[in-house]
Every structure is written in structure tokens, then in C-alpha cells.
């Protein structure tokens, strides 16, 4: 009898939350700090078991979410690849330090497993209510990267993506998943080491006395040495000059704030990830993300079987909002449908891009229940 062919990829049966951990570890994450909250706690529990087993891995349970994000910012400044995971109420507590991460250009990955809200809301039910909080929750005007995942395999892949973008652009990256994806168990493939790219922050090559921590570079992203590596500089949440010292001089303030936007906005093609399903000849398209995109994919297939030329744009990047991919659809379709487990946090962005060109229909649900394929199909077949 022939021996079965050796599988190169490891296949496991995992929860979405477990897939996040696998993705993080593959991306090189070696530091976790946080505070447990349903429905994200499995991420923390598994990290508590896994991190001590990897060289230099560190884990700490803090006294609250403010402590959690504070500790990962400190660790990231000290050169670690860091993760914290939370849900809506905890995410709200992190907002001030999230802004600190933006202005100090500290790579962070924050996973928010969204539950129903507002407030303590529905701890064990899914929702997509934190989309605009992820974009605008902290104070001040800033750019930020927000990703989503619609199934367990994507949880793994988008976590790797989140780490890569955080390191590449020196910025906090938020991964939004919802309770259903987080707690669905399905088979996933763990890629081999050479099958995915891992990006690490750029280290300075100049001698320490020449180094300016916030100097303009070609990409707009200054190199970032770790605390203790010989490059001694000041890190502050105050608006700072290229040396990192506080300033209120208009030219220096403008330079910093504009660069913080520019370093992300000039690389939209690299950041805005979308997946298109049957959009080539589509007359009606669904724009969805997270678990709802999964329902939408089935609804599109069913609509096609009924003769409706339907397509799906699955947003894997929510912010900066994928304007180009949406505009491309607008030239093809007569109607866009945006189903969401909120009252319209992404349809707002779609309508902004659409600017009245085609009809935009929304399906909104805030009862703690998933939007089923049949509900999307019903709208697809009627437009």
C-alpha cells in the first residue's frame, strides 16, 4: 500500500479566535498584553499558553484595557511585534492610547471582536457596530488602517496582513471581526513559512547621532530603532518636530500631521484589499464585509442560478475606504446593496463614493442576529 503523500501545509480545525493567534505567531508576534472580554477572550487565553513556549515571547494580563494597550505600545517601542484583542467596551477604553500610537507611529495590532452594543450590549451576539469607532474613535484628525475578516481562514490571513501593514507603515492596525467568525470552528490551512511575506519595521542604518526619529523619508515612514539599541530619542504624544521634541510651530506641526496622512494615503493600492466575486458582468452588486460577506457570497451564487447577474465586493480593508474598487463597480451596475449588522456605517462610505450615480440599497440589522443569505437574496432578486 502506498503511503499517503506528505502534506506540506498543516490543516487544523480552529475557531476564528484561534486562527488570529496562529496568524499572529506566523507574522512574528512575540508580545501580548490585554484584558479578557467576551467574545475575544480565547485569543488571550491561547496567547497565554503559546507565548512562553517561543523564544523571547512575553505575555501579561493587565488590570484593564487601557493598561493592555499601554503595555503593547511600550513593548512595541522596545522592538517587539505586539498584539492585543478586545471587544467593543474594551476598544472604547483603548481609544486615547490608539491616538498615541498614531502620532508616535508605533506599530500595533488590535483585534476587536465586535459584539452587539451600545454599552455592554449583547456580549455573545454578533454585530458590526464598531466600524466608525475604529475609524474615528480616538480624538484628533488622523489616518488609520482598519481590516476585516469574513471566515476563519481569513482571520489567519488578515492577522498576518495586519502585522505587515503595521510594521510597514509604522501605525496601529485594527482588525475587526464579529462574534460569529470568532466562534465558528472550521478547517483552515496553516501556510508554510515561505508561502507568505513577513514585513519587519525598517531599522536605522545611520550612526545614532545622525538619527532623527521623525524625519521625512521617500515612503514617509521614518526608520524605527528599538529602545535600548543605542538610538536614544524622545517619544511623545505631543505634536513634535523631527527630533521628537514638542513643538507648536505651525510649519513643524503641519509637516508632521500631513506626513502622518501621506504615508498611508500614497500607498492605497498596497493597503486597500478587496475580493471580487462575479463582478465582471454584474448588473447588481453587493458590498459587504465580515460574516455578512459570507452570507452575501451564497446569496450572489443563488441569484446567479435564478438568472440575476449579481456580484460581490468583499471589503477586507474598511479604512482607508476602498474608493477605487467601489468606483469600478459603479460603472457596471444599476444597484448596489450594502447589508450590515449596524444601521449603515459602511453604506455611508459607499454613498459618499457613489455620490448619487446609482441606486444604493441598504439592509440593516441590529437585533444580534446574522444577516442570512435569504435576506440578501430577497433584495437581489427584487431590484
Amino acid at each position, binding site marked *: 500500500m502506498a503511503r499517503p503523500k506528505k502534506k506540506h501545509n498543516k490543516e487544523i480545525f480552529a475557531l476564528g479566535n484561534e486562527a488570529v493567534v496562529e496568524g499572529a505567531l506566523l507574522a512574528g508576534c512575540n508580545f501580548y498584553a490585554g484584558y479578557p472580554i467576551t467574545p475575544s477572550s480565547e485569543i488571550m487565553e491561547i496567547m497565554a499558553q503559546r507565548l512562553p*513556549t517561543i523564544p523571547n515571547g512575553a505575555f501579561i494580563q493587565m488590570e484593564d484595557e487601557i493598561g493592555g494597550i499601554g*503595555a503593547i505600545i511600550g513593548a512595541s517601542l*522596545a522592538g517587539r511585534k505586539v498584539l492585543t484583542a478586545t471587544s467593543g467596551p474594551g476598544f472604547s477604553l483603548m481609544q*486615547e492610547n490608539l491616538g498615541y500610537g498614531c502620532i508616535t507611529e508605533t506599530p500595533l495590532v488590535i483585534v476587536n471582536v465586535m459584539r452587539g452594543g451600545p454599552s455592554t450590549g449583547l456580549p455573545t451576539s454578533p454585530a458590526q457596530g464598531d466600524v466608525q469607532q475604529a475609524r474615528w474613535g480616538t480624538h484628533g484628525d488622523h489616518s488609520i488602517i482598519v481590516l476585516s475578516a469574513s471566515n476563519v481562514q481569513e482571520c489567519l490571513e488578515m492577522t498576518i496582513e495586519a502585522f505587515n501593514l503595521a510594521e510597514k507603515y509604522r501605525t496601529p492596525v485594527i482588525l475587526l471581526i464579529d462574534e460569529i467568525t470568532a466562534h465558528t470552528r472550521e478547517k483552515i490551512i496553516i501556510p508554510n513559512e515561505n508561502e507568505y511575506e513577513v514585513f519587519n519595521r525598517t531599522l536605522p542604518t545611520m550612526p545614532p547621532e545622525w538619527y532623527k526619529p521623525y524625519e521625512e523619508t521617500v515612503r514617509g515612514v521614518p526608520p524605527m530603532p528599538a529602545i535600548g539599541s543605542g538610538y536614544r530619542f524622545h517619544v511623545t504624544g505631543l505634536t513634535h518636530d523631527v527630533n521628537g*521634541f514638542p513643538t507648536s510651530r505651525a510649519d513643524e506641526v503641519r509637516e508632521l500631521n500631513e506626513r502622518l496622512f501621506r504615508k498611508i494615503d500614497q500607498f492605497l493600492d498596497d493597503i486597500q484589499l478587496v475580493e471580487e466575486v462575479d463582478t465582471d458582468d454584474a448588473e447588481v452588486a453587493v458590498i459587504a464585509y465580515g460574516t455578512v460577506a459570507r452570507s452575501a457570497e451564497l446569496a450572489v451564487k443563488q441569484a446567479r442560478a435564478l438568472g440575476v447577474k449579481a456580484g460581490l465586493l468583499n471589503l477586507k480593508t474598511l479604512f482607508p475606504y476602498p474608493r477605487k474598487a467601489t468606483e469600478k463597480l459603479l460603472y457596471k451596475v444599476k444597484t448596489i446593496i450594502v447589508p450590515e449588522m449596524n444601521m449603515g456605517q459602511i453604506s455611508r462610505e459607499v454613498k459618499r463614493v457613489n455620490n448619487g450615480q446609482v441606486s444604493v440599497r441598504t439592509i440593516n440589522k441590529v437585533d444580534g442576529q446574522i444577516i442570512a443569505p435569504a435576506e440578501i437574496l430577497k433584495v437581489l432578486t427584487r431590484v
Partner: protein
Amino acid sequence: MADIKGTQLIHEYLRHNKKFPHVFCAGCGHGIVLGSLIRSIHGLGLSKDDVCVVAGIGCSGRLAAYVDFNTVHTTHGRALTFATGIKMAKPNMHVIVVMGDGDSMAIGGNHLIHAARRNIGVTALILNNNIYGMTGGQCSPTTPSGSFSMTTPAGQMEQSFDCVELCSAAGANYVARGSVFHVNKLDAMIMEGITNPGFGVVEILSPCFTQYGRKNKFKSPVEMYQALKKKVTPIERFNEIPEAERGERVPSGVFVKKNKPGLEEKYYEMAAMCQGGE
């Protein structure tokens, strides 16, 4: 290195590319603390690269920007959380946190008691001036009862925190109280706080004439320092004085000195076992 003294030594550690002057008012005690911190680090012979100074918000928070170490000026009240992350990531680094009384005991009170409870190996210098200085003179958790501030025009009615008792009860390994008037003792306390394992707290009484002194009938910064001199009593002598005669006296010295290993030591020992080490 050992033969440089006084201001020469201070200049050795200040940042040459930082725009001076500093933010401290005339009569402020924070500059004395800065000098004491530099002398302590120099006295211990630590490398600049091995020291990380983490500060919160307010006048004390600005202290970090002036010195040539790895420095992090954090969000209000959260300095200890950042420091915890840095220490866990770099356990061999000397992480020194500089906080004010509002920073450490009001907005950051929870982080303070938990840093003490988990005994993380950082040294916290709490610069206590009994007032919110930079924000404009509102009362703080250590504003003495009856004292006047912008938000207590009829006198503070609340009780104030005793930093030493708070941190001792929460489980800190090293707890001391000094003042900017007794600077040699302060140097010794900071040095001991840095070298002692686990979480160390040094409360430093540092007068704020601009915001506290003026509103509480001190005629000059000098008068505030004289009052501080009278108030601060070594713990041994303080205990000899009958309770009824203690008045406004505040005990100073080392209150707690334990030798428990810091959290980071225990964690990496556990991790080494997980990885099949010795």
C-alpha cells in the same frame, strides 16, 4: 567620568539638541529631582542606553524630554502601563517612571496599585506637589484637607491619599519618601529604588509655589522650602514623637524594603522551563 561634578555632571546627561529653557517655574522642586535622578544614575554607573525614563502628563511629565536616555512621554496616568510593557519586553533595562500626584494616584491610581501588586521591576518616582500644576492649580488626591486650590475655593473637604501607605499595602517591594530639601538622602533613595528588585516607589515632596504656595499663604518659594524642612521628619524620630504632637510632620525614609523577585524575572524563568531549558 567619576571626577566630573555639579553642573558639569548634569550637562553630561542633558540633551544638547533639545530647545531649552525648561518649563519649570522659579522655586519648583522638579529640577532638583532631575538633578537627583541624574546623580543617582551616574552614581550607579549605568549606561545611558540601559536606562528608559517613562513619564506621564503635567510638569513632572516634561522632565523626560531633557535627559539623554531612552525617553517616553506617555498619556495622562498611563506611564506605568507603558513602563510595564517596556520592562516585560526588555527585562534587563532600568525602567524609571516619573509621575505627578494626579498622574499616579488619580487617573492612574489603578495602574499604581496593580504595578505594586504584580511587583513589576520598575522604579516609580512620584513627584508630589499636592496640586495640579500645569493644568492651572486644581486640587489633587494629595491636596491636604483645608488647603485652597482653584477647585476647592472653600478649602479641600476630601481626605488625601498617603502615597506610602497606599503603595505599601498594595505590595510594592520598595517604598520610600524623601523631599527635594533633603537631596543627599533623596539621591540614596533613588539609587536604592533602582537597584532593589521588583516594584520600587519613591515619593518625593516637591513644592509648587506658583499654583499651591500662592493660594495657601506662602510668601515666597523660600518660605515653602523652610516649611518643607520643618515638616519632613525622619521616620525614626517621627515614631518617637507622641501622636498628639506630630501636627503637620510627615515621616520620611525607607518604609518597605523586600527582596522578592520582580514579575519579569519570574515570567522569564517560567518561559525558560516551557522552552525546555534548565
